[in-house]
């Protein structure tokens, strides 16, 4: 992947650059190339530098209260150089009521005091990579159905519906036993809890047996998670975790998906399909 290039800039006359310098170093530690403008840059100079340095993102820092007038001016200056595709983010001493104003003026996101540098780095990675349109999910990988007992449920699927049993497996990390049955290019996954702490047990207690989740197969799971996170979609897993059958998986929170629990799954090489 190409190295991300970031311009960190101090618009206006503010001399507080502790935050800007820390962020510059933290982003470098995350493998990005960072250009720091130094103090006292006009919006015009910042836009000029962003274009000349061909950066992927511009980060503005102001602690003097001038953000309301200067941040939007940087966006205008980028526009006038036909560089409005370079996203601008900002930080500093910025009251929460100004955040909506700045976002309306085109600032992508404001990070205020207390935000972690890791969060910022992930955000930037997501922002830059989301410019690439990710491929649509390829298929429904499987539909998960919560059951009290696989042994008792299996005869219905095998003999009444006539589906072929692929495999039965215990997933220790999730404290579940799963059975996969093939149906065309997809599968049905029966999930039986193995302990009281299992999420499936809780689901059964609350709702009884039934459809638990729908799993979509995707490429580039990490990038997709970053993109979803940056779009504000609530995630149950921000990082991929190990799923059944040597896959990488992550769940989207049902409150962001009309009450449906979606699993994103990526089959890694060597895993059985």
């Amino acid at each position, binding site marked *: 992947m190409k190295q991300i290039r970031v311009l960190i800039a101090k*618009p206006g006359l503010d*001399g507080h650059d502790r935050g800007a310098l*820390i962020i510059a170093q933290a982003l470098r530690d995350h493998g990005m190339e960072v250009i720091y403008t*130094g*103090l*006292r840059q006009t919006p015009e100079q910042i836009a000029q530098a962003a274009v000349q340095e061909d950066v992927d993102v511009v980060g503005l820092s102001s602690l*003097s209260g001038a953000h309301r007038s200067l941040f939007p001016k940087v966006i205008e200056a980028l526009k006038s150089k036909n560089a409005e595709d370079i996203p601008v983010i900002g930080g500093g*001493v910025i009251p929460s009521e100004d955040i909506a104003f700045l976002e309306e003026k085109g600032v992508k996101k404001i990070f205020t005091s*207390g935000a972690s540098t890791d969060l910022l780095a992930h955000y930037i990675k997501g922002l830059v990579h989301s410019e690439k349109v990710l491929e649509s999910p390829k298929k429904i990988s499987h539909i998960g159905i919560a059951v009290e007992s696989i042994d008792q449920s299996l005869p219905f699927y095998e003999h009444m519906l006539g589906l072929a049993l692929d495999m039965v497996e215990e997933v220790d990390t999730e404290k579940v036993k799963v059975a996969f049955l093939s149906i065309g290019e997809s599968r049905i996954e029966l999930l039986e809890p193995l302990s009281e702490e299992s999420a499936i047990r809780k689901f059964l207690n609350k709702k009884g047996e039934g459809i638990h989740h729908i799993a979509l197969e995707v490429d580039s799971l990490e990038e997709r998670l970053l993109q979803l996170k940056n779009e504000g979609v609530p995630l149950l897993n921000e990082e991929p975790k190990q799923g059944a059958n040597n896959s990488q998986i992550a769940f989207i929170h049902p409150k962001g998906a009309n009450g449906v629990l979606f699993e994103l799954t990526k089959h890694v090489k060597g895993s059985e399909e």
Partner: protein
Amino acid sequence: MKQESQFSHVKQEWEKETEKTTERFPERKKDFKTSSDIPIDRLYTPEQESDSYIDKLGFPGQFPYTRGIQPTMYRSKYWTMRQYAGFGSAKETNKRFRYLLEQGQTGLSVAFDLPTQIGYDSDDPMAEGEVGKVGVAIDSLADMEQLFESIPLEKVSTSMTINAPASVLLCMYIAVGEKQGVPSEKLTGTIQNDILKEYIARGTYIYPPKPSMRLITNIFRYCQENAPKFNTISISGYHIREAGSTAVQEVAFTIANGIAYVDAALQSGMDIDQFAPRLAFFFNAHNQFFEETAKFRAARRIWAKIMKERYHAKNPKSWKLRFHTQTGGSTLTAQQPDNNIVRVTLQALAAVLGGTQSLHTNSRDEALSLPTEESARIALRTQQILANESGIADTVDPLGGSYYVEHLTNEIERKAMEYIEKIDTFGGAVQAVEDGYMQREIHQTAYDTQKRIEKKEEIIVGLNQFELEEEVNPDLLKVDETLEANQKERLTQIKASRDLDKVQDCLDRLGKAARNDSENLLPYILESVKAYATVGEICNVLREEFGEYTGI
């Protein structure tokens, strides 16, 4: 026995000084006692009299001043409660000043906006968006007159946070005094005037180091002759700490800068005891309570030794490190801002136990914006509660003799001296600043601190532990958005109403004087401000002559 005689000799000196002091400044009460009627002595000393006590701690008001610079400290007079304030227009700030004075504040401290601090008029394109934001906008003497309207300058002492254009604002203050009928000899106050820490940490520099140092020594000399009660510099560790340094780095770099100013003044031909008594310091009060108290005590001892032993100053006033303290702005959190009141209280306590001469307590909402009037009042009340209710001011240096505090004091002195010696080998602070040495050291500490906080190795309540899911948004101060336009309008009117030939003549003469290294620029600047030349016009003349510093 020799040991006892040295101890009792110094003790007698202290008692004599105490008598003299209490005649001029009687103690606040005849008898101090605790709630249980236990009498409180002025000072407590070790049971065993020893030379090492005299060497390291001594008596308050006596070399090396570890225990304080006055013999009775706060038994006579509390520290000066001096809240830094200023925003928007001179008229608005004047209103806040008068409010603070009515509320029992005992000194003024002016915050200027960034254009003023960097020598730009409000109508300069560089000033856009910054006018009146972090302080008051001052363009010409007319603004300064309005700023101090109905505030008698012979009665208040005024601290001004102004560095690169310190000479201009000082001259404006002198001119306002003249108009009020107060001669410059009677003015009291402080200008920050500490350019080295601007290059290191704060960023409001204009000119390169060499001409900047000239302006500073010009001020030293001018004030010695014309405003002898004015503190000509406030050598500041505050911003070094805010930029992320440790306590040791704060003391070390500040004192290294102090040494550079002393060297510059000596080089300009002044005698050490002519200017050293008017040097003042400004430190941060951070979170680690005992280390902070120890820091102030160590700083006094280091400076006293340097002035006496390295520079052979004779006047004891030259040995005394007098300092202002502000609680640590960067320790405040935007999350759960009311928690900041507690942080500020602890920091203020450390400053008082460290023997500060004056104190600014930050307001709870400063991680979000400039303080509201209510927040500023709570901050002032915090000091008033410490002074009037806690009893901490009833005996001198109450932590003196604590094994722990004395150990920390010794260690801070030792580690700071290592830095100071290292900076000496570079050729002094000016050289170290130009090489970026101090900047790099501070940045490394700041980065390490950030990483520790993110890994939760350092806990900040409300930020990385004990968080609230929903933060409540407090009411914040809003600086009037029409202010910039109004200030520009006002400036246009003033520019139109002056005698333009006279302004031009003054500025020409200033430029000519700037080209001659042996001229003191202050009289020329004073003449210019009286002709209503603006801060920007004066600074631009000097920009033309001196060039601009562009960072490293």
